[in-house]
């Protein structure tokens, strides 16, 4: 009940923002908004002891029960972590934004979007129903789109927002398809019920496709290789947004999805390899590219990508335990998952602090370009402290929490080499090596952040404002975060016991909760092990590479812009626009004749094609009536007149020949016992011919059809094909004589309708509706004719309608 209310609260609050904005002008709007996450955080925190003792909370509100779509909130250890992160970091970010954004900005938009995002994010992590999860998932994409383009007058903001939207929504749609497959396989949208029915799901042929599609959604959202390209561009957003969405929450939605679906898919080889390999590639690629950035936020964006890859690969490694099944030996592989969860929290703390630090630097000196920064240490000592602690934690150095998770990461990659499933014995050694190399790059960019910003020479003439320390309000939030960075290092087991241990139970529901699932973290092992040596190596090699950075930096220029992932993305988007435009222009050329050709070709292809396919052509003249000589003559007259029209050079010839056709049709009506038709046809043909002649004065003379031979040939071919199709279908239809006609009924017209002319009784009595509407048609046509003649269009392009 109450968990659902906590999802609802941000949405309700966001609805009141515009009213508050209008009423309250002297107090910064953020103070009111701040109440929401603080209340939610405290409320969720009250659940911690109960969750830690193994309880879960579930509530269902019926939404569309007939389709099994209900708003089911499920609070367990895993959603708890994310709920606390979202509300906790959310509170700090809003506090920070109060000092970061001036009241001149359109704050009501900003906080409205931010609250929408927060509510959507809480919805994602608390939903048990896949469809509801998807709905909130897309809402995070939309609100993030709005937040990235907050300064919508800037072109780069709009471009970044569009790119983020395109990539994350594509992944979201893939994920939706995966969810639907899961539904087909399991018969339910509820994650818990899918878990209860796991064997049927795993036996289904949809299992692997569903897995791949869900992973696609997770990878795009969490900026995994090669979908990471939207994240650096999303840095056009205001810094509080970058800190909140693009480091602590939204990019972790994909991680959450992977963690949440691990019990479903985790035991499969494809899952193990795609999650851990993609994570590892992302880890390396992100850290490698972060080193070459000059913009601090871009650097942090790539470092976020890299760290997300690290977490992702750890979840992949941890899933190995699921495929082995529970035993005392396999349980050590679950430590990778534990490390993932641990690093997830650590990353949110130090990355949030670092983004806020960059925001402060940007805010106080007016630039984020490391080539213009330097020597700020003595001027901004408090900011410097944040940078050092955040960076060193990110680099994995003691005494900060990043050190612990980095050690556990190394340990997990080392352990996985001892496995002999999934052909790991052959390539398993890649894991620790790539992890180690990526850690070196991580160390290098961490040093760059601190060194290039705060050491070296101050360049006052290249800064936009004289540098000075930030106001205290801006420093509160990052200081709380770095306090956590150190606090978690000192008391890691508090976090492990209360927060991480119940989450482990959510990821390994089939495992009995043993102590091995939640390892005791020791900050100092008391002895020297391989991980510690690896960390030592990272520092030594990292320092060496940083010193020689100038020498190997040109290596980054080796890949031309065209072949970077961004370049490829731009080219694919650009060329798809170009080619679809060219294709449309090619066939939609604005010429009526061409459209007629398309229609005729389809007519012939579909009808004649089907007739040939089903072998329906037949001709049986045995029931035909006798041909009289005068009928034959009439037929020849018509054919001659029709063919002559084609060659008519003058319009009078064409019209008169058309008259010949019309009168011949009237004669046929006479011959075929249809007196009413003959009368009507004679009159109508006379009037039509008169109309043609009347309009001659106003219409141009017939021009000779100037066309190439090929064009003429096309026209003739199509005409003959259409004529032949009609003929062949007509002949085949004549044999289709399965039922008696209903006309015998109308022959009783005198008794039924009091008329002796059967045709007239049909028109006036039996089927008078047709006649009425036909009169309406005539009436409308008359009105149309009158209007078209009477209404004179004005010259100079000024129409009467305007």
């Amino acid at each position, binding site marked *: 009940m109450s968990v659902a209310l906590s999802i609802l609260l941000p949405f309700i609050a966001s609805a009141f923002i515009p009213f508050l904005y209008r009423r309250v002008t002297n107090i910064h709007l953020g103070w009111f908004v701040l109440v929401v996450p603080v209340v939610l955080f405290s409320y969720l925190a009250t659940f911690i002891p109960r969750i830690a003792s193994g309880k879960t909370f579930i509530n269902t509100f019926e939404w569309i029960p007939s389709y099994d779509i209900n708003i089911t909130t499920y609070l367990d250890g895993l959603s708890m972590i994310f709920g606390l992160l979202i509300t906790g970091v959310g509170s700090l970010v809003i506090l920070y934004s109060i000092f970061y954004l001036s009241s001149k900005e359109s704050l009501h938009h900003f906080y409205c979007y931010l609250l929408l995002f927060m509510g959507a994010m809480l919805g994602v992590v608390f939903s048990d129903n896949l469809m509801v999860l998807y709905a909130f998932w897309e809402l995070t994409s939309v609100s993030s789109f709005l937040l990235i383009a907050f300064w919508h007058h800037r072109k780069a903001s709009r471009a970044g927002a569009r790119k983020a939207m395109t990539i994350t929504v594509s992944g979201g749609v893939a994920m939706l398809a995966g969810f639907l497959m899961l539904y087909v396989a399991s018969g339910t949208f509820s994650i818990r019920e899918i878990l209860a029915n796991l064997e049927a799901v795993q036996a289904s042929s949809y299992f692997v496709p569903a897995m791949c599609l869900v992973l696609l959604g997770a990878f795009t959202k969490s900026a995994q290789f090669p979908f990471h390209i939207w994240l650096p561009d999303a840095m056009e957003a205001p810094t509080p947004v970058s800190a909140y969405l693009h480091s602590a929450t939204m990019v972790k939605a994909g991680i959450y999805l992977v963690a949440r679906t691990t019990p479903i898919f985790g035991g499969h080889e494809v899952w193990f390899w795609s999650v851990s390999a993609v994570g590892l590639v992302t880890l390396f690629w992100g850290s490698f590219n972060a080193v070459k950035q000059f913009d601090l936020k871009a650097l942090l964006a790539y470092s976020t990508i890299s760290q997300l890859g690290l977490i992702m690969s750890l979840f992949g490694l941890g899933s190995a335990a699921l495929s082995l099944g529970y035993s005392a030996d396999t349980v050590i592989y679950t430590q990778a998952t534990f490390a993932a969860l641990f690093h997830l929290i650590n990353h949110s703390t130090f990355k949030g602090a670092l983004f806020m630090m960059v925001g402060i630097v940007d805010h106080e000196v007016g630039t984020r370009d490391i080539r213009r920064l330097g020597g700020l240490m003595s001027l901004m000592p408090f900011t410097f402290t944040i940078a050092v602690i955040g960076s060193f934690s990110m680099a994995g150095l003691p005494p900060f929490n990043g050190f612990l998770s980095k050690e556990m990461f190394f340990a997990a990659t080392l352990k996985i080499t001892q496995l002999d499933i999934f052909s790991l014995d052959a390539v398993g050694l890649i894991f620790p090596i790539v992890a180690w190399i990526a850690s070196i790059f991580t160390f290098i960019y961490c040093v760059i952040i601190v060194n290039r910003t705060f050491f070296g020479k101050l360049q006052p003439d290249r800064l936009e404002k004289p540098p000075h320390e930030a106001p205290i309000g801006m420093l509160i939030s990052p200081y709380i975060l770095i306090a956590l960075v150190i606090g978690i290092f000192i008391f890691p087991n508090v976090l492990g016991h209360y927060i991480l241990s119940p989450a482990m139970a959510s990821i390994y529901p089939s495992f009995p909760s043993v102590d091995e699932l939640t390892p005791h973290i020791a900050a100092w092992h008391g002895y020297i092990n391989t991980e510690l040596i690896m960390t030592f190596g990272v520092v030594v090699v990292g320092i060496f590479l940083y010193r020689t950075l100038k020498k190997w930096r040109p290596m980054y220029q080796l890949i031309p812009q065209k072949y970077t992932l961004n370049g490829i993305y731009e080219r694919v988007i650009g060329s798809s626009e170009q080619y679809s435009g060219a294709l449309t222009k090619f066939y939609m050329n604005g010429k009526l004749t061409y459209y007629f050709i398309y229609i*005729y070709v389809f007519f012939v292809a579909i009808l004649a094609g089907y007739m040939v396919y089903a072998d329906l052509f037949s001709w049986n003249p045995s029931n035909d009536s006798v041909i009289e000589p005068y009928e034959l003559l009439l037929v020849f007259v*018509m054919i001659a007149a029709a063919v002559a029209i084609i060659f008519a050079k003058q319009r009078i010839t064409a019209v008169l020949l058309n008259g010949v056709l019309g009168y011949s049709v009237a004669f046929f009506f006479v011959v075929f*016992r249809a007196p009413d038709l003959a009368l009507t046809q004679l009159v109508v043909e006379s009037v039509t011919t008169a109309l043609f002649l009347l309009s001659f004065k*106003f219409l141009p003379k017939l021009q000779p059809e100037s066309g190439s031979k090929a064009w003429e040939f096309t026209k003739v071919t199509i005409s003959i094909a259409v004529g032949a199709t009609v003929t062949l279908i007509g002949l085949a239809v004549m044999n289709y004589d399965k039922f008696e006609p209903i006309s015998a009924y*109308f022959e009783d017209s005198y008794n039924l309708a009091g008329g002796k002319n059967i045709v007239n009784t049909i028109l006036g009595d039996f089927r008078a509706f047709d006649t009425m509407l036909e009169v309406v048609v005539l009436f409308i046509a008359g009105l*149309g*004719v009158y209007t078209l003649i009477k209404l004179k269009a004005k010259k100079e392009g000024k129409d009467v309608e305007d």
Partner: protein
Amino acid sequence: MESLMIVLIGILVAVATYLVLSRSVLRVIVGTAILSHAVHLLLLTVGGLKKGSVPILGQADAPFTDALPQALILTAIVISFAVTAFLLVLAYRMYLTNGSDDFHKLGGSSDE
């Protein structure tokens, strides 16, 4: 007779198609007129030809020719007449406004 009529109808349709594919408005209108002739004849033919006498009670004896297709054709003739008349006036207005009756010259707006 029916088979012969259907061949005739096929030829009329082919001619109509050829004319509809022309560039000048007048030819297209004549094409549609011929197409409606063909359709009227087709309706009559597939209803069966000369299967009885004129469908007027008292004038002749049963069996009568099927009256239903005749009623349908009568409706169709009037409607196609209305449409042809309207098309002619439309062509007149088109020529007045654009100064051309060539569909290839009128084709589409140059670019959005």
